């Protein structure tokens, strides 16, 4: 097939097809790896290998559960349930706030740019700080215990969900809204019958995921006194009770797996297996 193929002529006509991507890609490649090696040297990465022995000791301690009968199971289980309850309450509080906020922050509900600027910055502000920081603030304000943790989860999750809900509202099919507008429906009718049915699946599945992810996050909140299993975990790390640390980790994993299974079941029942 190469008979009559004039490479020089083709190159003259379409020079772009013969050009490589140039040296920029290689430079980027070298830069990325150079920086990586520099950082490893800077942070004394070799320690990972010299202290490996300590890690094995801890793993060994974790696997020895011979003292299981003496552990305070009631306290650990109660704390675990408290953590799950914190995640559930905090997230549900956030959902209740984020649904109206999400609609208010969507350009196809409220087209005024200035208004949207302020709602969006509010969402950014709420989720801009980590839950742990909020938890520190609320522990100071309201004392130790799960209330501080619930509020910390609620504040951050409101910011996250409101942003996601607003974007879901903005992505809905305009034709369906037009159809409801054309029958003479007001704002309430458009929200309830054209927009909500379209965003409800997104809202439900996002809220269910948030409960699951917050149950994981909430384990950490206990470290600053905001209730839950985290406090028990840190206590046991401090006294080198690694067997109980492993037990708590297993408890957390089982809880998260249970929530995951339940939320998947609920999602399928509420939204339907299709789409």
């Amino acid at each position, binding site marked *: 097939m190469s008979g009559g193929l004039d490479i020089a002529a083709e190159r003259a006509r379409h020079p772009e097809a013969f050009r490589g991507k140039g040296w920029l890609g290689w430079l980027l490649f070298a830069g990325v790896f150079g920086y990586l090696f520099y950082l490893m040297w800077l942070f004394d990465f070799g320690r990972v290998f010299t202290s490996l022995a300590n890690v094995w000791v801890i793993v060994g301690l974790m696997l020895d559960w011979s003292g299981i009968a003496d552990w305070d199971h009631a306290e650990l289980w109660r704390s675990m349930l408290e953590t799950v309850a914190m995640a559930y309450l905090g997230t549900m509080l956030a959902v209740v706030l984020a649904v109206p906020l999400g609609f208010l922050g969507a350009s196809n509900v409220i087209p005024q740019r200035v208004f949207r600027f302020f709602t969006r910055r509010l969402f950014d502000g709420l989720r801009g700080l980590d839950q742990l920081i909020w938890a520190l603030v609320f522990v100071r304000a309201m004392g130790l215990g799960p209330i501080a943790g619930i509020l910390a989860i609620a504040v951050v999750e409101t910011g996250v969900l409101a942003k996601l809900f607003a974007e879901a509202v903005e992505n809905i099919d305009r034709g*369906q809204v037009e*159809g*409801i507008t054309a*029958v*003479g429906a*007001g704002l309430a009718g458009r929200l309830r019958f054209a927009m909500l*049915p*379209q965003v409800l*699946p997104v809202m439900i599945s996002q809220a269910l995921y948030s409960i699951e992810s917050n149950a994981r996050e909430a384990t950490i909140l206990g470290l600053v006194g905001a209730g839950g299993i985290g406090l028990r975990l840190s206590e046991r790390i401090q006294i080198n009770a690694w067997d109980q640390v492993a037990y708590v980790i297993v408890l957390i994993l089982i809880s998260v797996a249970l929530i995951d299974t339940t939320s998947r079941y609920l999602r399928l029942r509420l939204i339907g297996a299709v789409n």
Partner: protein
Amino acid sequence: MLQLVELTRRFGETCAVDRASVTIADGEMVGIIGRSGAGKSTLLRLINRLIDPSEGRIECDGIDVTALRGKALRAWRARTAMIFQQFNLVNRLDVLTNVMCGRLFDMPAARVLLKWFTPTERALAIRALDRLGMADVAMNRADALSGGQQQRVAIARALMQQPRILLADEPIASLDPLNAKLVMDALADINRRDGITVLINLHTLDTARTYCQRIIGMSSGRIVFDGAPDALTDPVLREIYGQSANEGLDERLTSTSLPASSLATLAG
């Protein structure tokens, strides 16, 4: 009587509808033909007030429709029901609820938010569906239906509004020939039996000739023809459809209709 006076709508530089003036008597069935982008859709959306005119007026029985706001505007939209090419039903709601949405304009906000319909509304909705042969799928989700079925649900929703004027924007452009005939027959029946004025945008010339006593031709936003189907001669069609019709338009090419014999086979 519906009157458009020098109705104009501009989108930036382009003039989608350009000084359209036309009077439509109650009970007429009017077909609007023209190329894509001729302004047919914009014209219907202007009448329903989904978009506002740049200039000109819409009058109906002495009322200036273009000045309506708030509750009065919503009542006007309810009186001028719209049918869309893409049906515009709410996919995730069931068929019955979609039809009952046709009453949203005069429901109190509390009932709207609670999604609470009265037995009267339910009865009206099921009767509208029954008239279009769709009562047996009332509890199905709208997006579980075929295109032809969805369009008939959309017509039921329009009937639910108890409108005086029905605006249909390319209602059969996404349908197969058999469903196109069902939908056109339904629209003609509504026009004849209920005396509802029907304005219908059509792609297909022979459909317009078959169903409409009056045809309006649009080109580049202007109304270039307004008269009986018989008056649509070749020079007139050339003006409506532009240069592409230079060789003479073969109506069979744009047709979605089937010969009567094959329709009988399909239906049987």
